[in-house]
Structures are given as C-alpha cells and as structure tokens.
C-alpha cells in the first residue's frame, strides 16, 4: 500500500478541487478562442487530461520545493497557489498577468509560488530544473525540484545529458516524464525507440542507473505514490528518479497555427484530425481522470455527490471571475517593453 493511503480527506478534497480547477481553467482558455477571438495570441497549449498527473505529483511537495514545467504550463501554478486571475491575465496579454504580459501561455513564471520559469524550447527546462536542484544541494535548502516534460521532449539531448549529470551529482530532482502519447501531431510510435519496441519509456532510466517507473497518470493516487517515493529518495540525498506518467491529452497540441489576421482555434485532437483514430480518442475520454477520481472519492465516502457538485460549482464560479478579471484588465503600455532586459 502506497503513501497515498495516508492522505487526509481534506487533502483528497483539495486534490479533486485542483484537478477540477485545471480542467475548468483550460476549458475557458479554449473557449476564449471562440468567445473572444484575438485575445490570446501565439500558441497556447492545454493541460486537460493531465490533471491527475499534475495534482498527484504536486500533492507530494513539501513547502519550498520547486516546480519547473514545460511550455504546457497552465496547470502547475494554479495548484501552487498562483492566482488563477494572474495566470489567465497573462495568457490574455494583460499588465495584470503573472509575467506582466511579457511571457504569455508558454512562459509562465511565479517564483514567489515556487515556479521559477518555463522554457518554450524542448528539453531545456529539464536542465534548468536540475540546476535549481544543484543550488538546493549546495545551499542545503532541503528543496526537491520537480521537473515536468513530455514524452516528445525525452528525445532531446538535454534530457539525456541532464539525467546523467543529475545522477552523477545525486541532485534532489524528480523527473516526471508526462507521456501523453503525442508530441504535437506525432504519435509516440513514430518517434520513440522504446515505444516502438513495446517497452516503457521509463526504461531510459537504465542509461543512468537510476530508478525508473511507469505509472498510470490518470490516477492521482498512483501518481502520488510513485512521485512521493522519488521525492523522498531525492530528499534523502540518494539522487534523481525518472517517473513516466501515462495519460492522454484531451485537447489537440495547441490552437491551430495560422498567420494573422486569419483567426485561430482549437481543432479536433490529432488522433482524429491526423490519424482518423476515433476509437483511441473515445477510449481516452472514457478514462477521464477527473470523472474517475470523482467517482472514487464518492465511492470511498470522502465526498458526497452534493460535496462534489459544490466543488464543481465553486470552481466554475471562480473561473467566471477569472475570465472577467482578465478581460477587464488593461494591456501593458507599449514602452513597458523596455523593462527587464537587464537585472
């Protein structure tokens, strides 16, 4: 029995709430493209489907532990305590955004809430996470650093170099490989040698002689157990681990890439749009982590149906406010752009 069996009911409710918040937040981002065209620019990537993995992972955090996600980064700050308003405002280009409109969807940062930065370049953030862990080690802060990145990103040299160095230096870092079966439009069976051979991606850990496990990323408690073990290992000075968390992303990679002024929106998931594989997509949806966890909590008596509905309603109300706040916030002044080039 894993450590998750000791989670308090409050913590479990908190976990469900956070999962629900991520989902609703991402739904609202997606709807923005329809309801308020032009408000979001560039490329936005959603975390729906990843909720159990994100929340199960972050539920293991100790105070001051750091989190470094990839460019698909909306969910993490919501869980870490960043105001959802500030996150949405950032995505909406507002001066009230968590990065004052400088970063946007791919580059959320909130060091005050333990998320230093997110890099938009594949794999590089993995090294940054290990670096933060190196600082924690030298300064003996006791921090563990959580590094999140996709299955596709695990094919970038930075992943490999970093895991070796983290292993050699025994850095307090947990590498969570979020395997959602796709890198953008590419199915994993087209690009990963382990996947093609039918092996788990966690097998890559063998290249560094560190623990590697694969976990059902649609179950926050299983994720909790695996990540918790890795975090404890890191905290006790034994070094890094690789946790492969398997789930499915429900939205396509990002909004369609169009050239202004052509409007952009989210299309169908690549499974359907590119590969015509409706069955795969339907199976994933039947396995929705939020529905499953809701049913589990009700089944185990942690929540009543009414409790759950109350949470869902309050999350919806929160996100109504969030969108309103973001929409009504001012844009930055043009000259603001001259700030922050140098410290």
């Amino acid at each position, binding site marked *: 029995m894993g450590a998750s069996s000791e989670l308090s009911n409050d913590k479990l409710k908190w976990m469900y709430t956070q999962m629900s918040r991520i989902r609703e937040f991402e739904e609202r981002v997606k709807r923005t493209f329809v309801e308020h065209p032009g408000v*979001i*620019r*560039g*490329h936005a990537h959603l975390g729906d489907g990843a909720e159990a993995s994100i929340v199960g992972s972050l539920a293991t955090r100790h105070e001051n532990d750091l989190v470094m996600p990839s460019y698909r980064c909306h969910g993490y700050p919501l869980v870490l305590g960043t105001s959802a308003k500030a996150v949405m405002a*950032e995505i909406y*280009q*507002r*001066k009230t*955004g968590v*990065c004052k*409109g*400088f*970063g*946007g969807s*791919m*580059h959320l940062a909130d060091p005050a809430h333990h998320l230093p930065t997110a*890099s*938009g*370049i*594949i*794999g*590089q953030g993995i090294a940054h996470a290990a670096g933060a862990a190196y600082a924690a080690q030298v300064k003996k802060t006791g921090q563990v650093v959580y590094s999140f990145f996709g299955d*596709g*990103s695990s*094919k*970038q*040299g*930075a992943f490999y170099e970093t895991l070796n160095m983290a292993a050699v230096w025994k850095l307090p870092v947990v590498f969570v490989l979020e395997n959602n079966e796709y*890198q*953008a*439009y*590419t*199915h994993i069976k*087209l*690009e*990963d040698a382990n996947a093609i051979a039918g092996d788990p991606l966690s097998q890559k850990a063998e290249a560094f002689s560190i623990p590697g496990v694969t976990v059902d990323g649609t179950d926050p408690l299983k994720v909790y157990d695996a990540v918790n073990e890795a975090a404890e290992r890191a905290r006790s000075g034994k070094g890094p681990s690789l946790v492969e968390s398997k789930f499915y992303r429900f939205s396509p990679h990002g909004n369609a890439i169009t*050239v*202004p002024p*052509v409007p952009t929106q989210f299309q169908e998931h690549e499974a359907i749009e*590119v*590969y015509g594989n409706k069955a795969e997509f339907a199976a994933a949806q039947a396995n929705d982590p939020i529905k499953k966890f809701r049913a589990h909590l009700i089944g185990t008596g942690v929540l009543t149906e009414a409790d759950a509905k109350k949470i869902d309603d309050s999350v919806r109300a929160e996100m109504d406010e969030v969108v309103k706040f973001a929409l009504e916030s001012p*844009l*930055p*002044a*043009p*000259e*603001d*752009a*001259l700030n922050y*080039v140098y410290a």
Partner: protein
Amino acid sequence: MAREMMFAEAIAVAITEEMQRDPSVVFYGQNMAMTDRDPFVRKFGKDRVRITPISETAEMGIAIGAAMNGLRPVVELYMAEFMLVAFDEVINEAPRLRYMSGGQVKVPCVFKAGFGFAAGWAGQHSNCTYHAMMGIPGLKVAVPSTSADAMGLMRAAIRDDNPVVYLHHYMLTIDKGPVPEGDHIVPFGVADIKREGTDVTIVATAWMVKKSLAAAEQLAKEGISAEVVDPRTLAPLDVDTIVESVKKTGRLVLVDQAPRHASAAAVIAGEVAEHGFEYLKAPMKMVTGLNTSVPYSEPMESYVLPSEEKIVSAVKSVLARHAAAV
C-alpha cells in the same frame, strides 16, 4: 507566364519538383509525413520523406552525413530558433567539413525553417537568427521575401552543393504573388531591386521588404522616391548592388527585424561604410528591432519591432540630415 501562388505553396512546389527531378533529394523533419495520406509521402514514399523525433542535433547531423554519402537532404526545422539546440551542426560542422577535408567531400543539404514569428510567440520563438550564420565561410543563407524568390531560392538551395540555411518568414506564409512558370531559379548572391527610386535606398529582407515597400508607397505620396533593395541571400551577400543603389541615391536606410547588433543591417552598414562611403550624402540610418527580447503582449511587441512608420520617419530623417548638410 506567371501563376499566383502563396509563399508557402511556392516553397512546397519547389521541393516537390526538385524531388521529382532528382531522386537523391530527401525531405524530413518533425511533425510531417505522419501518415500515408501525406502528399509528399504519397508521391515519394517513406524512404525519402520521413518524420523525426524532437532531435535537432541528430536531424541535422544525419543530413550532413547523408549528404556526404550521396543524398541531398532538406530538413524541415519549422522554427529557426530550434536550430540553436544544435547550432554546432549548422555553423561548425556542415560548412567546415569540406574545407577541413581539403575539398574531398561536399555537404549539399538544406536546413529549412520559419522565423520571425512576430504574432505573440514571445521571447524564444520570434527571433531572427541569421546574423549568427551569415558570416560563416562555407554556409549559404537564403531569406526570400516573395513567392517567386521563395520558389527560385529553394530550387537553387537544393541544387547547391553546399549547406544552405533557408529561412522563410512566418508573416509572409500566406502572402500571394506571381511565380514564373517553368524551372524558375533565383541565383544566390544576387540582390533584387524590389522598387526603383532615386532619393534614398532602403535595404531590407523578408517581412521587412514588405514593410519597406509599404513605407515607400507612403513616401511616394509625399514626393519621396525610395529604392527598395532586397539582398535575398545574406550569404553570399551582394554588396555591389547595394553600393550601386547608394551611389544613385546617396542615402541609405537599413531595415531589420532583429535587434541592432544581431542584425544583418549592421553588417551591411559596415560594408557600405567601407565601400560606399563616398556616395553617401548623409549618415545612414538603421531601423531595427529594439534591444529587447520580443514580448508577448501585442502593444509591447509592436513597439519593439520595426514598422512602416518607423521606416518612413527614418527616411525623412536621412533626407533632412542631407538638407541640413547642403
């Protein structure tokens, strides 16, 4: 006779026709050729058209090795900044291997990438990286601004026996323009005068050509005749045509999306300062991106990038300086 074609389409047609012409041309990259329905896969099969993992070092390194063993790879890199994780392959492998071998090998390959995503892609996806490649001996760099040039330069790039970085500007992707019928080729190292004029020379590349032409149009209404020169390739760079234009107009404005010291404009300015000094009737002026990363939010992004208005006012200021000096 010319057909109308979108910029991106012109590139695709050039690649397709080159692949038809020469079986040693192969084409691969991330997020392409996913299924058998892909038009390139349908035409050329899965040996010559492939999908790759997110492994730019391997992607470009493999192109180099393949080029030395008889292929002519075109690597689709999508965004020029992704080359940076593997920049050694671009500027320290591909262009140097022939030279270091004493001329024994050749490395004909094309690194194709979009650039300048000035549409809210923010700090890491909106940059112009050509400055880091244009001075590398052995490497060629193409930066087309029209459909015709896009097609003709891609053909030339694929046929070139040297490594070529082919950069297509994102903001031009769906612009339409005439493209000559037949085997239309644009030679490397030949600048094009996109608009003739007598009062001032504007040198610009890619999207900045479009902005400069719009500025020239506006200036024409005020009686100012601007000549717009597009180098089309930054390596080799056609300094002569630029200097000739300056000889005619006596004034120079350089427009570049990149920040000043990371721009092609600065390098071109240096060349004109050395080779066209005596023709200049006033100091030249650069209109470049400001010295910041590119911010996400639209008002800030617009503020840091060159605009029609900034070009117009730069032209007026070099003309005013002239007037004052006379």
